[in-house]
């Protein structure tokens, strides 16, 4: 799994009906890569089945990650595996973190969460509070019992509005959004219909007011391969085979071709390499989704191949 780190489950807690929170730590007690609110990690759960979960712990604690996992009956077994099989003491592969949903500076925030979509917003409200911003969280869910982290949110008092559907109906978006207030940032995470409705309701707001993350714990259709692949180095003419337990960086260096690297965890960007042919399996924390899809650049300290062969500008 490339440079995906193996982290140990050190706590597993049921935090709502069908939601467990996992605490993850490095088996050696090492620091984990830094993250910012809105970031997610890839969890490698079963043979190559990778799913993405927002980090919902404390970024000031460099030694633990926390994720909240909803049991999804329609899923392909990733969340069921977490709920039914994964135990405290087990190790899981973790990739990332990456952030496609960063909290931008503002004096006023409106956070809208639907169900398990609370997870990326939890560190955001903590941060907004820390910064002394004016903020409101509206948190909808099916029932109170299905809504995770209500206890942690209780401390924020009347900034948090808990709206269980069976008690108060669906979120009345026009009411919560109100008239556009210049400078307010609206952050929304939750099921597709909620995001669609918020998009419509914010159509008259100033551009860039609304920021969303589509919380469909994405299942990567073609996860990292477990078989070797070939890397041809266009400039030096060498071809190397990358075994499943080696990084592209190691294999390329083994062929006597120098590649600079620094962090070795896909965060600093030093080993960025142009891809001339083939499809990389991106495992870095640098490229956003559009950049990943361009498939013209990869970070060889962690990223691998989806295709049988890559041609790199080395």
């Amino acid at each position: 799994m490339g440079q995906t780190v193996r982290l140990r489950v050190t706590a597993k807690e049921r935090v709502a009906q069908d939601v467990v929170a996992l605490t993850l730590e490095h088996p050696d007690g090492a620091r984990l890569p830094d993250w910012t609110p809105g970031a997610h990690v890839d969890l490698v759960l079963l043979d190559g089945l990778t799913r993405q979960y927002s980090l919902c712990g404390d970024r000031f604690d460099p030694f633990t990650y926390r994720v909240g996992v909803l049991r999804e009956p329609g899923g392909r077994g990733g969340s069921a595996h977490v709920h039914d099989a994964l135990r405290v003491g087990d190790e899981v592969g973790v990739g990332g973190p990456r952030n496609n949903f960063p909290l931008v500076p503002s004096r006023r925030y409106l956070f809208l969460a639907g169900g398990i979509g609370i997870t990326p917003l939890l560190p955001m409200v903590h941060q907004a509070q820390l910064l002394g911003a004016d903020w409101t969280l509206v948190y909808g869910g099916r029932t109170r019992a299905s809504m995770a982290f209500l206890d942690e949110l209780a401390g924020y008092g009347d900034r948090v509005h808990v709206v269980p559907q069976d008690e108060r109906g669906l979120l009345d978006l026009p009411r919560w959004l109100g008239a556009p207030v210049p400078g307010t940032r609206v952050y929304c995470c939750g099921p597709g219909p909620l995001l669609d409705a918020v998009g419509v309701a914010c159509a008259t707001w100033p551009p860039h007011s609304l920021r969303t993350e589509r919380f469909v714990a994405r299942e990567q259709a073609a996860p990292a391969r477990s078989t070797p692949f070939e890397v041809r180095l266009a400039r030096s003419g060498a071809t190397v085979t990358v075994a499943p337990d080696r990084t592209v960086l190691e294999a390329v260096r083994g062929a006597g071709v120098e590649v600079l690297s620094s962090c070795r965890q896909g965060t600093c960007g030093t080993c960025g390499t142009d891809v001339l042919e083939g499809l990389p399996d991106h495992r870095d924390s640098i490229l956003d989704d559009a950049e990943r899809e361009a498939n013209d650049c990869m970070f060889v300290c962690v990223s691998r191949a989806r295709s049988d062969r890559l041609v790199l500008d080395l």
Partner: protein
Amino acid sequence: MTTTAPTSPPTGTPVSDADPFGPEILEDPLPFHAALREAGPVVHLSRYGVYAMGRYEQVHAALRDWQGFQSGAGVGLSNFRTEQPWRPPSLLLEADPPHHDAPRRVLSTILVPRALRGLRERWTAAAVDLVDGLLARRGDVVEFDAVPALAEAFPLRVFPDAVGIPAGGRENLLPYGEFLFNAFGPHNELVAAGAPRLPELAAWVNAQCAREALAPDGFGARIWAAADRGDITPEQAPLIVRSLLSAGVDTTVHALAAALHAFATHPEQWRRLRARPELARVAFDEAVRWASPVQTFFRTATTDVRVADTVIPDGEKILMFLAAANRDPRRWTDPDRFDLSRDPSGHLGFGFGIHQCVGQHVARLEAECLLTALAARVETIEVAGPTRRHHNNTLRAWGSLPMRVRLG
């Protein structure tokens, strides 16, 4: 360095009364760095009442530990908890999470290697042009001072254009950076010498950061575009442009000078680069490790932090010697050798962790273009006369590097 009995709270912590900002150590810091590493993982510098680290392990760990070692109280000797900074603090260098997040994210997105691709062709042409101009003068052997002729000339030719500032006044960039990096040290004569021109230089730099001053397609304009998208606030944009102008010129100049000096004194390494020009990137990083153009930065303890056997009290300043860590024999084999066959990855010359030099890819591209252009034309390169160091409280710099090159 003399190691005496502790005179201040940290019982058992080695104490040094050396002045790392004095002219003797600035002229040749290597013996002091070695003594610092030998004295222990943490040393108290009695002259300034600060702690110091010179070993790779501790410097590396402290640079990663932004929770325990903050930058927001200033990365110089001055403690912003109790002292007024001489200018509004940098949103990058002198900020901690969460304030640091958005400016860092915006600037690192603008300066990632893939965003610089469009510059490679232009900078390669600029480097070839500069080198051709320099070597066209006379015969097969050419002499010049590499500091103004290459190390200063190339960054000044390409970087301000990439930022998008106007042509007028660019001569202010180097003296402004010079003052800034001196100001991280004590208020010694180096700071005093730069002070008279400071108001004028700072006013000029600040004026270049305004949206109206910047060309539409440069790094500066992209910072303002991020403000338009709301990724940063409009108040943050000019300060982030200022970071580019503050940290992007002098550092690269001195790193290039270090690389040129390294090659002039290691002819076998120049032959290696000539044979394999693709080593230019590794060569530059090895030069940055070997010479550490940025020698030091301070951090401030956010709480009582234990490092090895020393507890550094909350609010105390810690001087981290990147340069000493980059030559720590506990980490590097034969650390004093400039060697292109070494893997310099993991050196601390660009810092490490969340504050690691955001412009490192820009510096590498500049160096790669210039070294490649030189290697294509120059067969041998040697020192042609007395060299002169230039003292700065933070930077290891050359004032003059007379060189003689033979064209190949």
